[in-house]
């Protein structure tokens, strides 16, 4: 146990947790990493490629080493950074990526073979024999690769999604962020302050310097108290702003209940889309290490992290309290760790600093030199220090390394703004063309001292508000006692042996040298060749060091060598939360037809049709196969009368003095000449001349039409009609509105349909003379209920469609079935509907698939030459005009055989390949009327091949059928029935 005193943890509240099955005790306010360190645990994981033993490197979200699998069962959460995992009672964690126990990983053999695994090696081998790649080499690689493991079970937790709007979004709650939030908060504007940490304060919680002579933490406490009292300020701890998107929109994830042991039903995380007029990026900075041989042992840690663990979490980095600590730094900031640790009673034996003019700040030995090797496979035991050529091994339980600090510019470059090199800071800072409205403040822009951070944060807020025309008071800032840390450009220790640059992906200085040698010098080539910066930390701790090494090799300056921009997300985001709360059955909304309840009561089986759920067929007692139900329904329509809910067809209300002219331009055929009280079939083309939708158009009065569209295209047709109205012909006086949902529409089809309807209409004359085929009328039914009646037929039988206000649809359907019982009134679903339209050769989705033309549908004559309409001109292009494929019918020569849609058509005796392909079957069904399978489809010069026998080939399912080319009208080709 190496727990120290003080810090901002609650020493009184102990939390029990287990790591690799062993139970430990931590404190409230701990992270998993700080708790493990406080328990003397240094070895926490293995590296990706060489399976090197690894310990905690950092104290933040940049952690490349301390990745664990959290929780268990379906809640198992791989690759979780122990350094940002808030400890809770009962937490269970396991280390990853090892075979056998963590301290005896058999995969560590890779480390011995490391020379074979130099960067890019796999591009150069595994090529022979060819077959071995998928069979042997790749499976081996795949199983070796990867870090954590998914449970394989569905994520059981609840997630939420939401939208926030504010004047100022402050990203990061450290010194700069708090000053910004306070200044803006006092100005009364709407502020959101978000921090990925569970405690606001940032580095102020990790440092010992004072504000106004008091510990910085007490200033933080006071500020938080004031902010939480402000109505206009929303405090969002445990919230990572992961991406900057266009026009001030930010993606953020709030970890609502990740810090408690899973509570069912409670939201785990919430995805917030934040729209901010202005933003202040105060994300702080990330410390970089210094590559030197064997710099990756457990116990070697960033100096700033070491300081944070001691000051904030009262945890010593060593396994035993008496183990000596050494610091290796190229800057003054590293020395601060030595003094802070000494103050906590941790034995710091030396600070190794390559600078000749390195100062001393406390009672430790200052060695002007470098650390160039280490010992301690599972935990650091000693380091080799070299001073003017003289090397000595020094016992060491933990080594703190500081190579300077990199501003966290990530979000500032999400719009591809290139960071620029600041020679004074020896770091990249945000460049120009930042995301609109963003100001970067504090350590994120190199203003690293507390005093500068506070000021730049406040100033950022003030100028942000000024840009909104709001003048905010400057606030009094506390006096900070820290001073800028001097540093020198010292990038790595070049000695024999492997010096790690990217810890997780095991990229060493040698790999960079090799990349240079093989001309993989542009930074993107370097990264892709060596996998540098591709690990879960996305190079937060490695990119700059790597650039520096490459710069040294090419003799170019570091900025000349290149920079790297970052892309969202800033840190890993749970896929579940991006997917939102509603999944499974609620992935997309479901539309129910007005007669759904009744259909269900009649034993309907339902089917998804776009967003709709429609009755597919109605199984009656004794029916064991769906075909029996469908055949029965079809015959019922052909012999008696059937009822089908056709509400799903789109309905668009078109009104105005120019409605007729407008429709003339929308439909390829004449519509303006339609008489009042009549309906006409209409075909719509896209402007590129292809057919895309069809339906009926009814003229209710001189200036009032109702257009029906196919179910699939309802929204599209409406959109296109609005485009024509607003953008193409604004001079036409017409108005449009959708009424699809307002009316429940029921098809009443079959020889008995007139008789049936006569029993519900209120004294309306349905006789052929008064209400012939393609007539329409507004009337009342069932004692005064307003309704619309259309005499149209999809089935080819005498048929009507009747529409009533949607709330009455269910009752009307019930009534029709009831009063039509003696007439054989039978509900039918989409299957029977499909069979009957195929029997009549009506085109539907499979024929109107956007690739076909009016001509192919044998509707070429409909494209009027007398007028212009959408698509008319382009439909006359050579390629369309000369397309000889035609929609025809097919019957199997052997009645017992079934034709299947998707079969391709070939001339008998012809070899079968792409060039001899003659067409395809679009729709097929068993026709109880014909007594065999029938089909329709497109065939080259089909209209001229009636009676010819062709092959419908379906090798995909090993079938082929000889079929006769026939008219697509299998039922009543003369159309007598629907006119009777």
């Amino acid at each position: 146990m190496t727990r120290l005193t003080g810090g901002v943890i609650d020493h009184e509240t102990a939390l029990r947790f287990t790591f690799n099955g062993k139970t430990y005790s931590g404190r409230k306010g701990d992270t998993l990493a700080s708790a493990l360190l406080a328990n003397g645990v240094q070895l926490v994981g293995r590296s990706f490629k060489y399976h090197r033993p690894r310990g905690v490197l950092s104290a933040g979200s940049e952690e490349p080493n301390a990745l664990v699998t959290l929780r268990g069962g379906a809640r198992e959460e791989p690759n979780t950074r122990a350094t940002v995992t808030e400890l809770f009672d009962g937490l269970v964690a396991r280390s990853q990526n090892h075979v056998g126990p963590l301290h005896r990983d058999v995969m560590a053999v890779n480390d011995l073979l490391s020379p074979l695994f130099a960067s890019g090696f796999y591009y150069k081998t595994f090529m022979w024999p060819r077959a071995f790649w998928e069979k042997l080499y790749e499976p081996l690689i795949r199983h070796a690769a990867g870090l954590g493991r998914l449970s394989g079970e569905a994520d059981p937790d609840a997630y939420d999604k939401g939208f926030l709007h504010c004047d100022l979004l402050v990203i990061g709650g450290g010194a700069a962020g708090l000053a910004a939030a306070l200044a803006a908060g006092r100005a009364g504007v709407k502020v959101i302050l978000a921090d990925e940490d569970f405690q606001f304060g940032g580095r102020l919680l990790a440092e010992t310097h004072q504000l106004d002579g008091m510990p910085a933490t007490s200033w933080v406490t006071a500020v938080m108290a004031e902010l939480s009292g402000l109505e206009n300020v929303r405090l969002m701890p445990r919230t990572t702003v992961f991406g900057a998107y266009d026009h001030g929109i930010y993606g953020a994830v709030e970890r609502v209940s990740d810090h408690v042991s899973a509570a069912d039903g409670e939201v785990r995380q919430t995805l917030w889309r934040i729209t901010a007029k202005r933003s202040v990026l105060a994300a702080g900075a990330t410390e970089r290490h210094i590559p030197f041989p064997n710099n990756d042992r457990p116990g070697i840690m960033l100096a700033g992290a070491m300081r944070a663990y001691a000051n904030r979490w009262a945890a010593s980095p060593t396994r035993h309290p008496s183990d000596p600590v050494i610091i290796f730094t190229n800057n003054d900031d590293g020395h601060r760790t030595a003094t802070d640790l000494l103050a906590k009673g941790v034995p710091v034996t030396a600070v190794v600093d390559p600078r000749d003019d390195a100062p001393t700040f406390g009672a430790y030995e200052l060695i002007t030199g470098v650390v160039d090797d280490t010992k301690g496979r599972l935990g650091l035991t000693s380091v080799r220090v070299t001073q003017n050529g003289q090397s000595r091994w020094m016992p060491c339980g933990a080594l703190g390394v500081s190579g300077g600090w990199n501003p966290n510019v990530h979000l500032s470059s999400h719009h591809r703004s290139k960071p620029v090199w600041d020679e004074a800071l020896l770091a990249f800072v945000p460049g120009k063309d930042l995301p609109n409205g963003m100001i970067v403040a504090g350590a994120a822009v190199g203003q690293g001292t507390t005093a500068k951070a506070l000021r730049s944060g406040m100033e950022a807020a003030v100028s942000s508000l000024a840009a909104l025309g709001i003048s905010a008071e400057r606030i009094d800032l506390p006096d900070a006692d820290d001073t800028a840390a001097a540093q020198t450009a010292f990038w790595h220790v070049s000695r024999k042996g492997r010096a790690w640059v990217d810890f997780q992906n095991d990229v060493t200085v040698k790999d960079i040298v090799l990349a240079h040698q093989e001309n993989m010098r542009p930074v993107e080539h370097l990264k892709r060749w060596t996998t540098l910066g591709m690990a879960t930390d996305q190079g937060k701790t490695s990119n700059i060091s790597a650039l520096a090494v490459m710069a040294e090799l090419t003799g170019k300056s570091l900025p000349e060598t290149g920079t790297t921009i970052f892309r969202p997300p800033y840190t890993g985001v749970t896929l579940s939360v991006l997917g939102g709360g509603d999944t499974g059955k609620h992935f997309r909304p479901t539309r129910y037809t007005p007669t759904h309840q009744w259909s269900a009561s009649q034993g309907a089986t339902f089917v998804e049709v776009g967003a709709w759920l429609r009755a597919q067929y109605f199984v009656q007692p004794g029916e064991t196969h769906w075909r029996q139900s469908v055949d029965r329904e079809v015959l019922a329509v052909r012999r008696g009368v059937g009822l089908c809910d056709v509400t799903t067809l789109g309905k668009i209300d078109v009104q105005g003095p120019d409605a007729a002219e407008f429709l003339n331009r929308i439909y390829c055929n004449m519509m303006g000449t339609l008489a009042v009280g009549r309906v006409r079939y209409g075909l719509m083309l896209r402007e590129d001349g292809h057919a895309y939708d069809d339906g009926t158009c009814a003229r209710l009065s001189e200036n009032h039409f109702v257009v029906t569209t196919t179910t699939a295209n309802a929204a599209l047709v409406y959109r296109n009609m609005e485009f024509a109205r607003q953008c193409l012909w604004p001079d036409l006086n017409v108005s449009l509105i959708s009424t699809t949902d307002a009316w429940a529409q029921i098809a009443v089809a079959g020889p008995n349909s007139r008789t049936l309807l006569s029993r519900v209409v209120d004294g309306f004359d349905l006789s052929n003379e008064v209400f012939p085929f393609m007539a329409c009328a507004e009337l009342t039914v069932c004692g005064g209920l307003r309704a619309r009646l259309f005499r149209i037929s999809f089935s080819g039988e005498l048929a009507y469609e009747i529409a009533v206000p949607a709330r009455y649809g269910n009752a009307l359907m019930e009534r029709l079935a009831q009063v039509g019982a003696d007439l054989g009134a039978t509900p039918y679903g989409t299957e029977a509907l499909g069979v009957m339209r195929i029997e009549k050769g009506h085109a539907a989705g499979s024929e109107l698939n956007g690739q076909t033309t009016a001509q192919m549908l044998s509707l070429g004559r409909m494209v009027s030459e007398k007028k212009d309409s959408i698509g008319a001109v382009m439909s006359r292009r050579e390629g369309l005009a000369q397309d000889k494929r035609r929609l025809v019918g097919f019957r199997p020569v052997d009645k017992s055989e079934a034709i299947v849609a998707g079969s391709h058509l070939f001339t008998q005796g012809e070899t079968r390949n792409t060039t001899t392909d003659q067409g395809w079957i679009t729709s097929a069904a068993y026709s109880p009327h014909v007594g065999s399978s029938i089909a329709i489809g497109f065939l080259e010069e089909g209209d001229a091949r009636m009676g010819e026998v062709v092959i419908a080939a379906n090798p995909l399912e090993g079938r082929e059928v000889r079929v006769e080319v026939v008219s697509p009208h299998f039922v009543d080709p003369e159309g007598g029935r629907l006119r009777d």
Partner: protein
Amino acid sequence: MRYSGFRVIKEALLGQKGWRPLWRDPEPQPRYDYVIVGGGGHGLATAYYLAKTFQKSRIAVLEKGWLGSGNIGRNTTIIRSNYLLPGNEPFYEFSMKLWENLEQETNFNSMVSQRGIINLIHTDAQRDAYRRRGNAMLFAGADAQLLSPNELREMVPFLNYDNARFPIKGGLLQRRAGTARHDGVAWGYARGADMRGVDIIQNCEVTGMRIEGGKVLGVETSRGYIAAGKVGVAVAGSSSRVMSMAGMRLPIESHVLQAFVSEGLKPVIPGVITFGAGHFYVSQSDKGGLVFGGDIDGYNSYAQRGNLPVVEDVLEGGMALMPMIGRARLLRSWGGVMDMSMDGSPIIDRTSVDGLYFNGGWCYGGFKATPASGFAFAHLLATDRPHETATAYRLDRFARGYLIDEKGVGAQPNLH
């Protein structure tokens, strides 16, 4: 220098001292017989086949950034030949056959991995459409297999079969499809072309074209004028920009497509799976990351970055289809600029300017086409005749009405 397992072992023992640069960084010559504009996958493959198969010399590839920095460097690495239309399928199957021998061809392991692709079926109409497609694939000499729900469950048991908004009713499988290591493809062709004398000139941006009397004489670049016998443009994403230098307007819009990768995970997903009722497709890389994507953002863009709604849309699809990936994390997202053509299919053709050839309009399907596109473009440049599998990719098909519209959505690029 030849790559092999023995070489890797030898170098390991010799401290990697013997490895040579993968390619040179030559100074541009004043004149080339063939100038390929664009050092992406298609441009590099074109140069490779021009030199290797068509035995041409004095070839240069001009790349404005670093080679492979275009969409070859940012895609979801899928290779397949599961197209429907006769204008497309034979071409993509030709590409697939080239993929199958790519490593031996270039002596560079591009990790072509034929782990299969499954297009999921959710409705009867979709099954009919996939049956038509699968048969079209077979007739073009490709492989295809219609999977029953049970066969599907055995192959990919982790899909949401029991609580799906859109039930999964089967799938169309192409076993020979899969993935390839995208950068490795660019590097393999680049190294192969360089070994055959092709000058690959990086950081050399084409800023203008010198055209006289209807013939192209050469290109102005950021590194000076370069005379050329023939100029082949393969700059998908920037096609309109570059061709406007020759005064041409194209049936192309530039759109952004986002793609995503998760943190590294032990293997869970065998091949490529595409959702048929939402915008989501996924595979798993050899490093363990789930590589996935969905629909384009939908508005014209050259910004190489997208927006949040599409991220959410893609993951909604992902979670609906395979809820077991939910606790993995998104590691990185990126955006590429797509040449979205007016019928969703590419163009490989001569132009109205003598000696100027164009290759583009790949929409988001360019990666899988890389070998065939390079081969066909090289064939056109070398012989002035289109390759037999690319005869439909004419520039005048839009004016004449011979469209290759797989989706049937017409002249609206963002719908393809």
